[in-house]
């Protein structure tokens, strides 16, 4: 159970508090099952592996992205970095609006 808790905590961190629907779509595990898993029910070994696979693939992207950001910081000029930053902010704003949608729907 501890391994399960760690895995889910890591996944939440890496995906930035994903919705149950999002995890379900990415793993193929039913939404209700994802909900139960996140609420403490013990997951099957196959579910653990599926979620671990998702986490690993996300971590890999994240590592590459971190490296890319470091390269950008050292090689691009400030105005270009500001431009990239603005693009990221705009994308995050859309995510924020969508997340607020989830909150509204739950309420």
């Amino acid at each position, binding site marked *: 159970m501890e391994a399960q808790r760690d895995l889910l905590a890591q996944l939440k961190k890496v995906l930035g508090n994903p919705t149950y629907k999002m995890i379900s779509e990415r793993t193929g595990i039913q939404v209700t099952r994802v909900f139960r898993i996140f609420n403490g029910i013990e997951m099957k070994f196959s579910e653990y592996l599926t979620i671990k696979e998702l986490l690993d693939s996300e971590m890999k992207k994240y590592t590459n992205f971190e490296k890319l950001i470091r390269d950008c910081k050292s090689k691009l000029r400030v105005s270009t970095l500001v431009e990239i930053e603005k*693009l990221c902010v705009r994308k995050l704003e859309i995510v924020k609006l969508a997340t607020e949608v989830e909150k509204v729907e739950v309420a």
Partner: protein
Amino acid sequence: MKELLMLERMVIESIAKGEKSLKSIQLDTGLDYSLVLSIAAKLLQRGLVDYKYGEYSVSKNDINWQKVNRDDSIKNEIKEVSDNMIDIFFDDRSRNKLKLQKVYINKQDEKILNSLLNSVENFVNDLRKDQKVNNVKVQTKDQKVLMWGYGDYQDLVQNTLKVVS
């Protein structure tokens, strides 16, 4: 964020057109009700729309509007539109149009091109006027988004090189 997202601009356009309730904005924009609610709340917070007796209206606060209508804000909005226009074109070429051409144009032909582009602009403006005069109800979501223009190839390439310090 000082600038507007395309989503936010769409909701503002809908309100400006006279859609006052969340339900009518939802029908007009085709966005989910909860998303409209979320966007409207954000716009209200930023002082770009007002809310009174269950109805939304566009704020008349010029200072708030100046912030979102600055050149760099508009530039980022247009970038969002063009990015998405390119994406949807490659997703479905039968429903969307996109042309990109490179050609040498002499001064004489440039005048002709400008005149043709003016005609396009006049055509679009006339469509808008006609719809207003004839009271044609058009839903915001059903509009086409058009974009045109040109630039010197050399300038475009030089602009990409601005990433180098």
